[in-house]
């Protein structure tokens, strides 16, 4: 027989082990990347053009390209996602339309990213004649992350207490004034969280930009939204599996840079969130 005390210890050990199993791979991956990549990363690696067919030199155009793509994704995904979320949370009555919109969003979230890539290629690159460009890539990535942005924003908008809305409406504010001045500022933290999760994912995706934006090798910076560009995840894919003789340091360095970029974005988001929380003076 096991005593209650032993059961207690067993249960604790099990849950502790489970969390360890989750934490461990994350630590191993990050530690491994840091150990291998740290030697590859230098100031010149981050700021120089690739040389000698990407066997030497830096990855600056890929970093810049990814930043452009991320910025473009934000430009399209944030207004679209937030407005859609407001519509769902505040305006859409419990109607069939709303159920259809929700179902579409859930389904969109389950579409594999390579399908987004082909969709973006068909719609933006070919049909709308944007060509393989930052514009086409950003739009494709924006659609990829819309479900996340909408879901998080809707949740955030809904969780703003009813008493704030009524307080505003009772003063004679219109619904839009209430949404704009009371609901959105209070939902901003949750919205930013959703956007960052989405954008972090967009920054790391290869398949959606492969056909819509990313250049194999382009040793110059993009000159307009209609230029194509290099991008970190695609560059990593190229040096890791398309080239036989790219030095390993190139691969580790690129991987670590991508990881640091995404981490930096999460950090910035955390800071913004903290600011909003302070501004709300909870």
């Amino acid at each position, binding site marked *: 027989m096991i005593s209650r005390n032993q059961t207690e210890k067993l249960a604790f050990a099990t849950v502790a082990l489970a969390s360890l199993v989750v934490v461990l791979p994350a630590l191993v991956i990050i530690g491994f990347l840091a150990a291998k990549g740290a030697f590859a990363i230098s100031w010149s690696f981050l700021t120089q053009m690739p040389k000698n067919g990407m066997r030497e030199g830096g990855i600056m155009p890929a970093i810049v390209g990814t930043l452009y793509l991320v910025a473009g994704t934000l430009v399209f995904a944030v207004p679209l996602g937030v407005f859609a979320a407001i519509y769902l949370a505040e305006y859409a*009555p*419990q109607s069939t339309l709303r159920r259809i919109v929700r179902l579409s969003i859930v389904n969109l979230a389950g579409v594999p990213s390579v399908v987004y890539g082909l969709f973006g290629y068909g719609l933006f690159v070919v049909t709308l004649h944007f060509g393989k460009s930052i514009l086409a890539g950003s739009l494709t990535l924006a659609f990829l992350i819309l479900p996340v942005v909408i879901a998080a924003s809707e949740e955030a908008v809904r969780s703003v*207490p009813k*008493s*704030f809305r*009524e*307080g*505003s*409406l*009772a*003063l*004679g*504010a*219109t619904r839009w*004034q209430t949404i704009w*001045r*009371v609901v959105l500022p*209070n939902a901003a933290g949750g919205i930013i969280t959703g956007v960052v999760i989405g954008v972090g994912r967009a920054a790391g995706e290869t398949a959606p930009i492969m056909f819509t934006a990313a250049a194999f090798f382009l040793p110059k910076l993009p000159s307009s939204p209609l230029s194509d560009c290099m991008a970190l995840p695609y560059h990593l894919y190229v040096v890791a599996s398309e080239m036989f003789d790219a030095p390993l340091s190139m691969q580790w360095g690129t991987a670590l840079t991508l990881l640091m970029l995404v981490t930096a974005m999460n950090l910035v988001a955390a800071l913004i969130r903290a600011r909003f929380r302070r501004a*709300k*003076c*909870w």
Partner: protein
Amino acid sequence: MLVSVPVSISEAQSPQPRWNAASECVCGKVEVEDLSLFYGTFQALRNVSISIPECAVLALIGPSGCGKSSFLRCINRLNDLIPGARTTGRVLLDGKNVYDPDVDAFLLRKRVGMVFQQPNPFPKSIFENVAYGPRIHGVKNKSELADIVERSLRRAALWDEVKDDVYKPALALSGGQQQRLCIARALAVEPEILLMDEPCSALDPISTGRIEELICSLKEDYTIVIVTHNMQQASRISDYTGFFLMGELIEFGESAQIFTRPKDKRTEDYVTGRFG
């Protein structure tokens, strides 16, 4: 047995009848005629008719769930926002039915302020809370806003406590101060009527006392309707009292009469605490 409670009715006079442009007799600031309210199929108010006198305090009493809050929210049409809520009957404000199709509910709510049971200041500074209403109604000038904020805070008897730092977060105030801030916020848009839904039920006795004093001073300028569960409070601060039961207005009259000589047996049971 009736409890005898101190009642101040000296200032409570019967309101003078007035005549509006449409030549209808307007006896109160708000005339509610045959008002019924439905939430879906559930009827929350049953043919309520009541005359709310100008510049006086009307207290609404009755057990929980009898429709007091619902009644208040009919006057400023806050129920419009509840899906499935439907009203019949008329609510005349200065002789004009607020449910007429040409009435703008947003402008109506500017004239009819509301204070809620739980103090609900916005998570902004004290200043921004009070300035919120004037801002949404188009006041942009900084010094004008500052004027309004100071005047409203003074009127709500909060100025002296917060004047050193009106930019500090509203949520750092005590519950009673927050409620007075909400009153100041409502006053800042210059309403004519103030609806108060159990404004003291979340407050300690001292804060409650301050709000009661405030209400007594506000009735010089405003028509006040207050919901309260506290019989002593109702008899202390109100000129008129209405007793609701299960969506019906059972009895309405001067507070002195309701609390000392109720006509209806159910009112008597309720005010003497023998109810239920």
